């Protein structure tokens, strides 16, 4: 299940939507808007998330399919918010479900790592007074992705 949405979501409800007695293990990753400083040392007030929706959906489907196949998952849910978000709000949720924990945990990390460098979302810091700042991609995210090269076909 993949969703790109302006709305927030409830963790319990999303869990129930994919839960099944075949799953002994669920791994979740939840990203949220962190209170941070802008590059000009201003306190951020929130973020704005831009998205190329058709492409992002296609990219997320591909990542999900890879995770399901490679780790033989029973389920994989990905939700990503777009639009304006306040501090503390949920941005992204990944849930992987498997019989066993190691697979669920590893696959969940793969999904969020892939999403960070391969899916058409862009973050802006909102600084108040209509001021915005583009968030730049972290070098470390690209490097981290290299570790999956040997694991995934």
């Amino acid at each position, binding site marked *: 299940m993949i969703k790109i949405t302006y709305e927030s979501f409830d963790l319990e409800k999303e869990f129930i939507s994919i839960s099944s007695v075949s799953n002994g293990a669920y791994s979740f990753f939840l*990203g949220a808007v962190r209170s941070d400083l802008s590059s000009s040392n201003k306190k951020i007030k929130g973020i704005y*998330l*831009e*998205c*190329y929706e*058709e*492409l*992002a959906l*296609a990219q997320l489907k591909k990542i999900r399919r890879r995770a399901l196949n490679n780790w033989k998952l029973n389920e994989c849910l990905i939700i*990503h918010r777009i639009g304006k978000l306040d501090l503390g709000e949920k*941005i*992204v949720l990944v849930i992987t479900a498997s019989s066993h924990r190691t697979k669920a945990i590893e696959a969940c990390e793969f999904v*969020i790592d892939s*999403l*960070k*460098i*391969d*899916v*058409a*979302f*862009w*973050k802006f810091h909102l600084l108040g007074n209509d001021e915005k700042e*583009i*968030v*730049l*991609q972290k070098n470390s995210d690209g490097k981290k992705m290299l570790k999956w090269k040997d694991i995934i076909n």
Partner: protein
Amino acid sequence: MNIKLKYFSWIRVKLKKSHDLIEFDQTISFKELKINLISKDPVFQEIFEDKSVKYFLNLTEIYDENQKLNNGDILALLPPVTGG
């Protein structure tokens, strides 16, 4: 023929618009499109020189400058992504 251009993130901000619909008399390549765009707005020079920008033609990344563009194609200009 028509090509739809889509701009995201800093490219959208720089160009002050999210898309363009451009008409050409005949089929052109991606390379020819670039030259055409730079001639209209020098901001495109900066965009095309940035090696981190990716180009997606109808949702598939393109690498080949000589890629032919067809009527109705959607070409998106994407800075490095920062979601999650």
